[in-house]
């Protein structure tokens, strides 16, 4: 869990430090612009490569994958599965 969280937060904060009061797990990193439409494709491919998993097309198109906490849960589910 910690490794996934670190990987995700490191990428999201590549350009901007998240405000201290951010509820990280509830953060929609696409709606808040931390990862834009162009970066999203790269971000997902990097997560898949880092953790040796493959998201389904439905998962990639879902709103859940854009929220940090739900994304982490999805990665964990793949690793457990």
């Amino acid at each position, binding site marked *: 869990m910690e490794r996934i969280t670190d990987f995700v937060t490191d990428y999201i904060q590549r350009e901007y430090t998240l405000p201290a009061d951010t509820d990280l797990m509830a953060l929609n990193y696409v709606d808040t612009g931390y990862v834009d*439409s162009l970066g999203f494709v790269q971000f997902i*491919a990097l997560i898949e490569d880092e953790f040796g998993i493959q998201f389904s097309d439905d998962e990639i198109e879902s709103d859940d994958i854009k929220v940090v906490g739900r994304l982490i849960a999805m990665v964990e589910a793949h690793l457990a599965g």
Partner: protein
Amino acid sequence: MKSKIADAFYRHATLTPDKEAIICDGKAMTYGELADFVSRLSHLLLSCGATYGDHIAIPMNNSIESVALFVSAADLGLCLVPLNASMPYEAVKAAMQAADAKHLIARSSFLRDCARYGHRVTEGFTLCLDTDFEGAVPFSRIDEMPATRPDGPEVDGGETYILTLTSGSTGSPKPIDLSQDNKLNRIMAHQRVYAISEADRILAATPLYHSLAERLVLMPLVLGATCVLLPRFTPQLWIDCARSLKATFTIAVSAQLAQILDVVKQWQIPPIASFRAIVSSSALLEQDVKLELTRLLPCEFHEMYGTSETSTATSICFQQEPSKRDSVGRAFDGAAIAILDDEGRECAPYTVGEIAVASPLRCKGYYKLPALMDEATTRGFFRTGDLGSVDADGYLYFAGRKKELIITGAVNVYPADIDTVVARMEGIAECAAFSFPDHRLGEVVALAVVTKPGTVFQKRRIQTYCARHLADFQQPHKIFRVDALPRNAMGKLRRNDILPLVREAAID
């Protein structure tokens, strides 16, 4: 002589120290506060060893620190090399070498990426913006610096001030060389054409490593107006920021405006009343989008055409010239437009040819590549690589691109850069990136690959390789396997024929 850009800024700081200079990401600074910050930053750079004429690379975000750096660099006669933070290490290294970058200012995540390769990226100092990093000077040392303007060097204005990295058709970096005089002349030309005054609140919402946003943040500081800098772009953030901070002027890229319009229609958001004028740049807006935008944003609506090399070349006000609504306008302040045929002869009105621009706002050239600029110039006119025609009244009509370029979300992507990287993969016989239409971004990058016999086509493997070796804006959003790439009788790739090929065959 001191820097004219820095002098103008410090003059406003003396005359109107309590006026809002900049607002970004919930933080605001008055002219007095920003002047103190710029001075401290200049002292920090000097204490690190920066000297007149040095080149500093920076993966740049939209922040007050980045804006202060532009003023500070001007005052000290330094050159900035702004980079996209998502560029992979190899591209960063190539860009820094091409731009002779001696020093580096970056965030820790970028420095960690570089450290992974075990190379020293610069011969000079490294400044880390967000935390302590081994071997780097922490930015927090700025607090120890004096808030008085340093007695900087003589700056004549002709020095290289900003090197904007673009890519040539060969995939190697092609830095566009802009002097302080270039930047200042561009600011003053836009001030004249769009009647910008110190009362304006100018919204900058594109990345600061592009020349458009650089102009939009330097313009208010030179003119004594207020800069509203959007840290990251989403349509909702743009609308909220423009409304709450009462923006009066902006130059937006057309892909942004189309996305903003989508959100406004979906949520039935009321018009934003503060704008006095909005300029759309980068690509043509469709007529219905323009009409709807003028209802949402009830102000003067302009469209412009230009290139990074020449700055704005034409401009038109949508409401003032209703009979010319398909045009991107007439020659901008001091510029001249010519339409050239393949032999470099000027075309008659209404004949499509290559758009060429002569302008006093033209850049110094391509850094250390004078032959490239000479090749692109005919009788003093820069050949843009775009196609168009002019009518009998001198209005320019854009007709497409001659050069191979994909523009995704207003970012220029050179397909050759992607071809070169993907071709290195095992099992790929040949490949070609091409433009694929997209409602939100205008175009996205697509990739056609031919695999070697006996190789299984694995889309995911290509995606992962691209994620590791290309910048975010270069990522292929669609990947197609084809039996062969379309080529002409001479074997030259016909990139424009790939899209119909994959569509016709319904390949995915």
